């Protein structure tokens, strides 16, 4: 099934894309996708901050199970204000 990954700030800089559609096995959890990204992009491990995750614009945990057409956003701690 297909999902969309969105990245921001340091994560975007390291991965080199801000949005990408990928195909994942059904039943995949957020942590599976993060693991796959780490394997494919060794530079991703340079991020020392804890990552924040949102699925369909709501914060969630790495255990969240993804569904078809979900939008998975990965980003560092926020710094607005």
């Amino acid at each position, binding site marked *: 099934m297909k999902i969309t990954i969105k990245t921001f700030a340091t994560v975007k800089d390291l991965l080199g894309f801000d949005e990408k559609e990928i195909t994942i096995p059904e039943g995949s959890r957020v942590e599976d996708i993060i693991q796959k990204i780490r394997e494919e992009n060794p530079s991703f491990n340079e991020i020392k*901050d804890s990552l924040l995750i*949102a699925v369909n*614009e*709501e914060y969630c945990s790495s255990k969240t199970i993804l569904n078809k057409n979900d939008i998975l*956003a990965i980003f560092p701690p*926020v*710094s*607005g*204000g």
Partner: protein
Amino acid sequence: MKQIIFQKEPINIENAVKNTGTDRDGAVVVFIGRARNRSNNKDVNFLEYEIYESMAYKEMEKIVNYAVKNWSLNNCIVIHRYGRVNINEASILISLSSPHREEAYKASRYIIDTIKKTVPIWKKEFYSDGSIWITDRS
């Protein structure tokens, strides 16, 4: 009245403050966050903010709705810039009103502190010798 605005353009502070407050309100509290020229022991030339706008709106709405309900606010305006923000310019404005000052002060503090924790916006500082994303929630 609740208003949440994300914009690239400089904030019209006077206008926002003028639009805050009803006949029932004895207090208007305004918080302005500004781009300062010194950070991390370096001279800062300017800032850039990146935003995940659709999610930022949802998160901001949660914060404003809670504050309005919890501290009996009659007006609450939050304007946050994205893109380039020059030194001395406002990056955020929170303008709110309530019958009494205690509630207004508490609400203002809650809103800015929570924005810094949950609203997906990121600040990048630009120096003469490079730039850095800020992720320390300062």
